[in-house]
């Protein structure tokens, strides 16, 4: 499968393809290959989304509020 079609499959995962592109994916002769890459990209998605170590937790609320409390509140022009 060429890179262009694989990129289309990746975009399809995100719902970012048009009808023509979808047709090109569905009409690709090697269905098995399409299915394999489609599955691979789903697997990547699951691993990224479910990887808690990629999420960072901070608590800067108190510091930010203390700093901005010393400033004149902004007003929309």
């Amino acid at each position, binding site marked *: 499968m060429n890179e262009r079609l694989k990129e289309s499959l990746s975009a399809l995962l995100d719902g970012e393809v048009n009808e023509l592109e979808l047709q090109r994916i569905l009409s690709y002769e090697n269905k098995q290959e399409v299915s394999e890459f489609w599955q691979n990209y789903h697997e990547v998605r699951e691993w990224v989304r479910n990887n808690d170590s990629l999420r960072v937790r901070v608590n800067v609320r108190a510091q930010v509020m203390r700093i901005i409390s010393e400033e004149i*509140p902004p007003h929309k*022009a």
Partner: protein
Amino acid sequence: MNPGQYEDCARHPSSDQLDQKLVSRVQKGDRSAFDLLIVKYQNKVASIISRYIEDINEIADVTQEVFIKAYRGIPNFRGDSAFYTWLFRITLNTAKNYVLKNRKQAGQTLTEDLATQELIADSWRSLDSPERLIGRAELAEGIQNALSVMPEELSVALILREFEGLSYEEISKVMDCPVGTVRSRIFRARELLDNTIKSLTDSQ
């Protein structure tokens, strides 16, 4: 954690409406409304910054800087795009400037996939023992390593899509690049991660 738990968490219409209401309050001088926005977005902002900066204390410092910039800039926020799009754009610019200013790492950013692949291979070499079963934790670590060594523009695009549920158009606004570039970056990031998964699972 359920698959897809985080999908579109920032994009829910009622979430956007709440943001707009809070922003309007801040623009009228209500600091407490900004407090709510900080709590809502601080971990998302920090997670994006972590694509550029590893040290948690520095991440917290830059996160703080992002919100102070946002507060000072909020009178100029016109609501043409969602608040989080605007905030994430400030986040990226602040993180990039921090790296350039404090670490002079601009020259270290990788642009070639080949070099990236080699770095990713290095990052999991310690795990790559034929006799060893690769468990879920190790695979998760491999994914994390791969994301940390691939070019930031790839990992940031993927994180904005997968964690924050931003559309390609929204990501293009945050990253200040064409939609086609976003599409390509997300694809390349997925390819690199797919290769990571295959390499780790093949070694079982």
